[in-house]
């Protein structure tokens, strides 16, 4: 069983706010699922290479050139953000 401390640690890594009640529920749910996926450990994979893409494509290249977008399109995209200034997305300072 995962401890409350572990659950709180993962939640912080995931930048996910959790209430106290939810931490308890996550403890239970995550432990059950982890228990289920545990059975993967019995598979011998010593000589096996990992797969991250089913057909192992390599180095798909394209020209390193920006696509030109209209100013309207750009402002449309910027407008989706909650805080803006002079055509830029405004973010919080990381260090306060």
């Amino acid at each position, binding site marked *: 069983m995962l401890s409350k401390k572990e*659950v709180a640690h*993962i*939640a912080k*890594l*995931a*930048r*996910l*706010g*959790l*209430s106290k009640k*939810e931490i308890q529920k*996550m403890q239970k*749910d*995550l432990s*059950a*699922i*982890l228990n*289920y*996926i*545990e*059975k*993967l*450990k019995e*598979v011998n*994979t010593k000589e*096996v*290479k*990992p*797969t*991250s*893409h*089913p*057909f192992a*494509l390599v180095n*798909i290249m*394209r020209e390193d050139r920006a696509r030109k977008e209209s100013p309207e*399109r750009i402002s*449309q*995209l910027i407008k*989706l*953000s*909650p*805080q803006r200034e002079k055509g830029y*997305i405004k*973010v*919080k*300072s*990381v260090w*306060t």
Partner: protein
Amino acid sequence: MDLTNLTISQIHRGLLRKEFSAVELVQAFLQRIEREEKKIRAFITLSEESAITQAKKIDEMIFQGRELPLLGGVPAVIKDNILVEGLRCTAGSLILENYIAPYDAFVIKKLKSQGVIILGKANMDEFAIGSSGEYSAFGITRNPHDLERVPGGSSSGSAAAVSAQMACFALGSDTGGSIRLPASFCGVVGMKPTYGSVSRFGLIAMASSLDQIGPLTKTVEDNEIVFEAIKGKDPLDSTSVVPPLSLPKFQISDLKIGLPKEYFIEGINPEVRELINLTIKKFEELGAKIEEISLPHTKYALPTYYIIMTAEVSSNLARYDGIKYGFSIERGEKKNTFSLLDVYLQTREKGLGEEVRRRIMLGTYVLSAGYYEAYYLQAQKVRTLIRDDFRKAFEKVDIILTPVSPTPAFKIGEKIKDPLTMYLSDIFTVSLNLAGLPGISIPCGKIGKLPVGFQLIGKPFQEKMILEAGKIFERAYYEL
């Protein structure tokens, strides 16, 4: 004539022969939606006005005698995780409740270029995470065959809309079974193409190495038409590929169908089993050869999937941070009073649903220091073994036939309290996503009023093979 019951080629013929206009066709669907939608709730957003405007343009084209593409004027619904410029795109989540898509997905551009008419955006499990449709933030879609039951997920609204004749066809997305499961539960045809056959540009990402867009339709023939329209290489999706050249001529008497013994296990509903057996018999009568095969790592597919998928979900969904777009506590009255960390924590706490948060947590855990190798890396290696199982099997057979799900549609609320039981709904579908293979769910009968589908699995980029086999089965099935 009931216009909402027509297939794509019937619509095409009807429009060309001026038996009905595109506007009449769209109105017939809108009336049907007006009647059925209250019960079924397949839509998140309706776009009646633009649909009528589009239909008028198609009628004008026909009037002028210009060539009408096969899909011209055909009314469709699009799963709400695929971007349609100017329409709201929520992915079934509160965090995108007011997000208006700023551009068209690749598949939408393709459909629009043929003159497809978009009636609206379909309900779905939040971020395509779920097997029942119950995890949508915008209400539960109901199964048109039994309103007490789920339509299957995550493309719940797409399957229900086609089944209830509220659209001629739909687009869905499939990460672990999200097209095939609802297709089976709702009695429609649903295909997940080979990974890379269809561009994912403009699809809201869930698990990028598994996601694929595909069609949900009334018939296999319609499915092929839509697939042909949306497939293709796109420079904006580097994992999309130019499909290899077409196959040799298909003949059912040359077809070898494999039955993986690991898929015909205890725990399958006996009536589902019976319908699958009848389907196998039908293929035999039609001249196909049936052979037992083995996919020895089958029992590891679901745990492998749950590690890889949650890992990718946790990184893909990191973008919903309350800064760039979507719901943010920074939009409220108390903005500017939060620290950066608070913006992240609270936005995601309020904006994301329970199951999504559970999977982000699990994905973060399996990727975290100290667990990465034991879980994530091990899962990637088992993924190789699962893919190799299929490779070996396909040396002996051309296609593989399995059930889609161990049971027909279950009751609303039946599995929602226990995540693990819900996950088991996908036991026969997830392997294909891990191996990148194409799979199609085709109706093969009913238990009472509940439809059941079977699954055909093809070799990579050989969608044509499973579609041809499906068409032959379908013709024989409806002649009964």
